[in-house]
C-alpha cells in the first residue's frame, strides 16, 4: 500500500515543474545571449529593472499581463474539462467587437452600469463565437481543436470588416487606420494608478481567477468538470450528462476569452482597432500550459509573461539585444514545462509499477 503525499506536497510538486522550466529556459536563453556578445546577467538585470524595478515598470507589467491572464484562464478552464479551446484569439476579437458595440453607444447611466453592460456584451460575444464548435463537439463529436482554431481567422476578419474606414458599420469614416471612433467615457475602465495606463482589467482578471478556483474546487459543476477532464468514460458511467457539461465549459471558456477582448478595448485602447491583438489568444494557451491549467497558477504565469514583455524594452535599450529573445524564453519555458510534465508522468507510471507488483492492479 502506497501512502499518497499530502496535498501541500502535491502543490509544491505541481509548482516545481513550471519554476524549474522557467529557470531552465533562462539558462538556455542565457547561452544565446552570450553568443550574441552580451552578458546574460546584464540582460536579465535590465529585464527585471524594466518589469518590476519601479512603480511605473510594475504598471506596464500589469497592463501587459491583463489580456493574457484572461485568455489564459479561458484556456485553462477548458483544459480542466479535457477540452482544448484554442480559439481564444477569435473569441477575443468577437468579445472586443460586442463590447465596443455597447461601449460606443452614449448612455445616460452611471459609468458602472455602462461598464458592466459592455463587459457582459464582451462575454456574450466570445461565448457566441464558440457556440458552434461547442455544439459540434458536444453533440457530434467534432474535434474542437480544429473548429475553434479555424474560427480564429474568421473572427479577425469579422473585426476587420466591422471597423473598415469606408464601409465598416463600426469603422471611423476616413480614418487612416481601420478603427472605430473612441468609446464613450462612461464605458472606460477606471485607471488604477495615476500617470500609468494600468486599468481595472487586471483586478477583473485576478478576481475571475479566484472565482474559477472556487468553481473548480468547491462546486458540483467544478467536480463534474474535473471528472470529465480526468476520465470521460467513468464520468459517463457515473451519470454525468457530458453534452451539457461540455457546452457549459466551452461557453464559459469562450466568454472569458471574449472578456479579454472587451477589457483590452475598454481599459487600454478605447477604440476597436483592426488587428489589435498580437496573438493574446495563443499566448493564453502558453500561459495555461505553464500554469498546468490551475487558475491561481495562471495569475503567476501571466505575470511572468507580462514581465518578460514589459522588461524587454529596457533590455533592448541597455544591451541592444532584439526583443525577440523574449519569445525565445517563452517558447523554451513552454518546451521545458511540457518535457517536465511528461517526465513527471513517466515517473508516476514508474512509481505505479511497485503497486502492480505488490497489490495487483492489472491491465
Amino acid at each position, binding site marked *: 500500500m*502506497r501512502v*499518497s503525499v499530502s496535498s501541500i506536497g502535491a502543490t509544491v510538486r505541481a509548482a516545481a515543474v513550471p519554476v524549474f522550466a522557467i529557470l531552465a529556459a533562462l539558462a538556455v536563453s542565457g547561452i544565446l545571449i552570450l553568443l550574441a556578445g552580451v552578458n546574460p546577467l546584464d540582460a536579465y538585470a535590465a529585464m527585471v529593472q524594466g518589469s518590476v524595478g519601479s512603480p511605473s515598470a510594475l504598471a506596464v507589467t500589469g497592463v501587459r499581463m491583463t489580456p493574457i491572464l484572461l485568455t489564459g484562464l479561458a484556456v485553462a478552464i477548458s483544459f480542466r474539462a479535457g477540452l482544448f479551446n484554442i480559439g481564444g484569439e477569435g473569441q477575443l476579437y468577437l468579445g472586443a467587437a460586442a463590447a465596443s458595440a455597447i461601449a460606443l453607444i452614449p448612455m445616460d447611466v452611471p459609468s458602472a452600469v455602462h461598464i458592466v453592460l459592455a463587459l457582459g456584451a464582451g462575454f456574450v460575444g466570445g461565448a457566441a463565437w464558440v457556440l458552434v464548435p461547442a455544439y459540434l463537439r458536444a453533440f457530434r463529436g467534432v474535434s474542437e481543436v480544429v473548429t475553434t482554431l479555424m474560427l480564429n481567422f474568421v473572427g479577425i476578419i469579422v473585426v476587420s470588416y466591422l471597423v473598415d474606414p469606408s464601409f465598416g458599420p463600426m469603422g471611423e469614416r476616413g480614418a487612416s487606420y481601420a478603427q472605430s471612433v473612441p468609446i464613450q467615457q462612461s464605458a472606460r475602465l477606471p485607471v488604477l494608478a495615476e500617470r500609468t495606463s494600468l486599468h481595472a482589467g487586471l483586478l477583473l482578471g485576478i478576481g475571475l481567477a479566484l472565482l474559477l478556483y472556487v468553481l473548480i474546487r468547491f462546486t458540483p459543476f467544478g*467536480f463534474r468538470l*474535473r471528472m470529465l477532464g*480526468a*476520465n470521460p*468514460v467513468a464520468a459517463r458511467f457515473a451519470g454525468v450528462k457530458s453534452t451539457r457539461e461540455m457546452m457549459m465549459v466551452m461557453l464559459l471558456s469562450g466568454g472569458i476569452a471574449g472578456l479579454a477582448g472587451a477589457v483590452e478595448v475598454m481599459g487600454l485602447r478605447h477604440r476597436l482597432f483592426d488587428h489589435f491583438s498580437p496573438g493574446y489568444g495563443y499566448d493564453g494557451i502558453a500561459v495555461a500550459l505553464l500554469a498546468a491549467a490551475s487558475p491561481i497558477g495562471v495569475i503567476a504565469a501571466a505575470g511572468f509573461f507580462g514581465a518578460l514583455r514589459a522588461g524587454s524594452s529596457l533590455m533592448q535599450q541597455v544591451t541592444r539585444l532584439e526583443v525577440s529573445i523574449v519569445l525565445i524564453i517563452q517558447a523554451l519555458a513552454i518546451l521545458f514545462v511540457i518535457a517536465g510534465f511528461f517526465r513527471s508522468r513517466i515517473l508516476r507510471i514508474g*512509481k505505479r509499477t511497485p503497486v502492480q507488483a505488490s*497489490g495487483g492492479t492489472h*491491465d
Partner: protein
Amino acid sequence: MAQKPESSRGLLHMVGITKRYGDLVADDRVSFMVREGEIHALLGENGAGKSTLMKVLYGMVQPDEGEIWIDGTPVQIASPHDAVRNGIGMVHQRFMLVPNLTAVENVVLGMRQPRAPLLDLSDARDRLMELAADYHLEVEPDVPVWQLSVGMQQRLEILKALYRGARLLVLDEPTAVLAPSEVTHLFRVMRLLVAEGRGIIFISHKLSEVKEVSDRITVLRAGRVTGSIETPEATAAGLSEMMVGRQVSISRVSPPSVGSTAVLEIERVTCLGDRGTAALRELSLTVRSGEIVGVAGVDGNGQRELVELIAGLRPTADGQILIDGQQPRDVLQQTSMLGFIPEDRHREGLVEDMTVAENIVLKIHGRAPFTDRGLLRWGAINAHAEEQIGVYGIRCSGPSARASALSGGNQQKVVIARETQDGPRLLVAAQPTRGLDVGAVEAVLALLRQQRDRGAAILLISTELPELLAVSDRIVVLHGGEIIGEAPPSEDHLDLIGQMMMGHRPVTAVA
C-alpha cells in the same frame, strides 16, 4: 551464486534475479530454468513477480542483481531488441499489433528489409504462410488486423515471434481471451512448438490449464520462488497453497437461496452491438430480491451489451427492461435503486486521478450534506469517505489518497462502496474480480454475498466459473447473445455449463 549452471539441456537460466522498486522487492533472488522442449508454467498471483521477471527477460526492465544465461552462455539483455536477437519471443497479454496494418505488415514491422529502402512483402508473405501452415496457426495475411478475431490476432503474435526466430516463447495469460475450443487448439500448437526443441514459458493463474499443458511448474509468491515441480507431481491444493501461502477456498459458504420479488425484469430484449449487428437476441431474464444470478459465458457473447442495457447506457432495439418497474434510464442516477460495478474499473469504474473520497461520492457529490448552498463541503465528503473506508475495509492512506495509488482489490472495494453505500435494490457486477488476486477475490465475493443477504437482487457476470459456482444462486449461460440454458450452481453441472458456454443447447432440462 553466479556460477555456470550445470544442465546442458538448459535453454534459459535466470539466476538470482532481484528487482527492487524503491522499498518494494518485486523479485527477490529468483532463479528459474527452462529446458529445451519444455512448457514451463509460471504460476503466481498478481503481484507475485511474474510480470517483472518476464520484463527482465525481455529487456524492458533491468534487474538490480542476477544473470541471464541462454544456451549456457551469459547474455546481456538491455532491450527487447536484444531479447529478440537472443531468440526470445513474447506474446503480451495486450497484443502489440498495429490495427490498421495487415498481418504481413505487422510481422515485418521493425525488421530489416531485404531490399531496403523498398518494401517487398511477397517473400515475407510466403514465409509467413509457410510458418502458419507448419504450426496450424491460420491467419488471414492481407486484412487489416483490427478485422481479425482475437484468437487470430493471438496466432499472429505467435507467428510474429516465430518469424523472428524465437526459440523461447513467453505466453502471458494467453487463454484469458480465448474460447474453450480455441484454448484446446492453442495447447496443441504449444505442444507442436516444443516438440522441435523450443521452450515455452506459460504464464497463468488458472491451475487447471497449467496442469493440463505444462511439463514443469514454478510458483512465485511475493517475489520469491516457492517451488519448482514436475507437473505430474503437482496437486491443485498443493499449488494453490504454494501460490497464496495459506489455504484459500473460493467455495460456497451457504446453500443457494431463493429470491423473492422480481427486481430486474428483462423481456425479449434485442439490442445492437457497436458494429451494428445484433448483440443480444430476444433475451429474457429475471433477477429477484435476495438472489445472485450468475451469468456464465465466454467473453464477447453479449455480456458488455447486457450490462450497458441494464445501466441505461445502451438503447434497446426491441423488448423491454424494467428495474422495479422503472426504465433503466430513470434509475441510473438513483443510487438506492441501481448499483453498477463496470467491467473495466480503470476506465469505467474509477477516476484514477481523483482521490478515494472523490471517487466514493462520484455520483452523490451534489446531494446534501456533500453540497450545501451550492458549494461542496469537503469536511462532510471526507468524513463520509472515512466511514466507508472503514465499513468496506479499503486499505489506503486516507480519503485524500489518489485512487491510482491503491491496489486492484482496494480499487474495486472503492467502486463497490460507491455503488452499494445507498443499499441499491439491484446490483449489477460485471467481471468484478478480473485481475484481482485470490485474497481480493475472496473479499469481493464476500461483499456480494453481504449485499444479497441484505436483500439486493444481484446480477453477476463473470467468465470465471469457480467464482460463479461459489456465490451464485442460479447460473444462466450466455452464448451468442442468447441465454441458452440455466443450471444450479454445483460442481455436478460443470460439464453441462461448459458445453453450453460453447453453444451446445442442453438436451434435457436440468432440475
